[in-house]
Each structure stands twice: as C-alpha cells, then as structure tokens.
C-alpha cells in the first residue's frame, strides 16, 4: 500500500515539476532582473554624484559673488560691514 502511494506521489511530482529548460529560463530571468536593478541603481548613484558635484561647484562659484559689496545706490538697512549680510531678491508681483 505504502509502496503504491509513494510511487503515485513521485509520478504526480514529476508531472507537475517544471522541466529543466524552464528552470534554467527562470534562473536567467531572475539574473537579468537582479542585474538590471543593480545597473539602474549604479546609474542612479552615478547621476546623483554628478549632480551633487555640479551643485557644489556652482555653490563655490556663487560664494565669491556674494562677497561683492552693495552698490552705493542700493537700498540697505543696518550698518555696512555688519557680520551678517542678508541679500533679499524679491519680486513685487
């Protein structure tokens, strides 16, 4: 009885188990997905690094321009040479 049921189970397993080709195909698909994800991640990190680098270069470029003194015609409040200078760019609309 037990022998019969074991044989039946084996038969049913082999009936529903995926073929070797399918298994290989699935593995490749998985590898492609993981590889693609890693590639996208690496590209993303690279682009972010470039963006941050460009931004920091821009900031460095901006800093000396901020040191420029206000023109005589400029409207200011507070003493010239104050330790903190606030430059406000605002639009009337």
């Amino acid at each position, binding site marked *: 009885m037990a022998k019969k049921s074991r044989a039946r189970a084996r038969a049913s397993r082999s009936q529903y188990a995926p073929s070797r080709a399918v298994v290989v195909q699935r593995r490749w698909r998985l590898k492609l997905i993981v590889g693609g994800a890693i590639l996208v991640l690496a590209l993303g990190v690279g682009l972010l690094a470039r963006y941050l680098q460009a931004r920091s270069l821009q900031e460095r470029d901006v800093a000396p321009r*901020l040191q420029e003194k206000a023109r005589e015609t400029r*409207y200011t*409040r*507070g003493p010239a040479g104050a330790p903190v*200078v606030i*430059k*406000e760019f*605002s*639009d*009337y609309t």
Partner: protein
Amino acid sequence: MQRFEGQVQLVLYPFALNPISEVATQAAWCAGVQGKFWEFHQLLYRRQELWYRLPAPLERLSDFAKDVQLDATALKSCVESGQTQDLMKADKAYGQQLQVSSTPTVFINEQRIVGAQAESDFVRVIRQELERVQRPGQ
C-alpha cells in the same frame, strides 16, 4: 532685523520676473530718486491686489505715489524715461549670477533660502551665522 540691530545688514534687490513687476520695480527705484524708496516699496506690497493684475499698472502706481507724498508726475515720467532700467537690469544680472530663479530668494551670508519661510527659520540661520563669524579662528 530689530532684534539683531547693529549685527545685520539687509540689502534689497527688487527682482522683476515679468513686465508688470518691471514697471513696479522701476517705480520703486524712481520713488527712491525722491527719497521715498522704502515707503513706496512697502506700499507696493500692501496694495499688491490693486495693481498686479493690470496690464499697464503705471497709472495706478502713480496714484499711490501721492499717498506717500511723492510727486506723481515726476515718478511717472521717471519710469517712462527708463532711467532706472539699468539698475533693474544690473540686479537681474547679479541675481542670475547667484542662480536666483525664483522669489523670494534670500542669502544670509552664503546660506541660500528659497521660498517664503517662517520668521523663526530666518532667526535661526542668522543666529547660526552670528555664532559662526564670532567664533575665534573663523
């Protein structure tokens, strides 16, 4: 500003983003020619609703001029003559060098703050800057 008296200087750069704002900016500069820049500057904000949608707001702005004891005719002819256009363009160019693309943009020393912020945020950054510049060895 008052709480940091003597420690902070505010420099204003009217930054016109559209033709209507350009007229207002020039009017503010022209009010400055008559020694009333700040009064007119505040008035432009206070009465913004009354003029900023008008396609040609100069007439209305000239009307406002009387309320701050400005010579309205002189203000109008000053704007029309374009004598303050160079100042406005210079501000715009300076803003562009600093990568200002929207308003309000505020620099507190070298720290950039973009968009309307709570007063407490400005106070915090000003305090940080004061501490930084007053720290020995900085």
